[in-house]
């Protein structure tokens, strides 16, 4: 059971006020019609699903209804931080982590 600090309401709330909307920082292709079936499928379905640090999109559904990110550990369930959508700092960290992955993704 999580106690989640809503960065918009600026106070901790019980997990059942929130709704998890899946992996955060997924980049939607700017021109969907220009993507291949492969690229589109990757965007739509394929997820990093790590054991460890994960950044997720959540909504404070029963509350301010705003979406925000949670950076947390999927194994220990520790929440490192919650941050607003316009906070770009984690985006940078994420790009670094990703640059080493997906080596064989293009073969499929």
């Amino acid at each position, binding site marked *: 059971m999580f106690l989640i600090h809503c960065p918009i*309401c*600026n106070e901790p709330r*019980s997990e059942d006020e929130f709704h998890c909307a899946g992996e955060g920082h997924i980049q939607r292709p700017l021109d969907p019609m220009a993507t291949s079936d492969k690229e589109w499928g990757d965007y739509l379905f394929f997820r990093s699903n790590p054991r460890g640090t994960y950044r997720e999109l959540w909504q404070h559904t*029963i509350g*301010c209804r705003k979406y925000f990110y949670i950076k947390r550990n999927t194994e220990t369930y520790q929440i490192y931080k919650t941050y607003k959508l316009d906070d770009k700092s984690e985006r940078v960290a994420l790009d670094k982590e990703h640059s080493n992955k997906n080596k064989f993704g293009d073969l499929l």
Partner: protein
Amino acid sequence: MYNCYQQTPSDLSIKKQLSMYHISTEIKASNAHYLLEEVEYGHLNIRVGRENRCFTQALHDVTGLQLPKTSLQVVQNDEFRLYWISPDEFLLLVAVGREFEIEKKIRANIKNTDSANHYAILNVSSAQAFLKLSGSRAQSIIKKSTAYDIHPSNLPVGKAVTTTFAKTQVILCRTKEKDLNTTSNSEEYSIIVRRSFSDYVWRWIVDAGKRE
């Protein structure tokens, strides 16, 4: 650019049915330990960004109120009460029957008529029920219904939280603190709930009120 019009009949003899009309005509439930009432107000839902000075000025001109400065805050004066719902959503309560007048006034006071001036005002007086709960058992009924910490240090008068209430959601406020001079619990709470959920919340509270 926006469709705004009087939603209450000019003929005042036309009967109105609040959310709880089917429960009882008096719209009241009570026993020795609690009193639950539906109270009628005009509800105006306001959508605007804090940076829209033009709108906030108009709002101030009409109501005398500034937008709440912090999250979850309620500001009020003798005539109006303004709730923070989210960074760009506020609920303005006005006296019954004045909602259209106030809406029109705010719109009229907005100097910038450019279509890029982004805001919305909506009369939602029929869409939500305002319930008032008091009595010695009020606090324990609320505690049984939400995980939110309602201790006065966390939920003082002047704060409004949208939170879970049993299996639904409400806007919850403490409207009166306990009177230190009395031994009985003289607290009072307000619960704003969507109309279609109001019957459930009502029955839930009545059921809780029956229990020890």
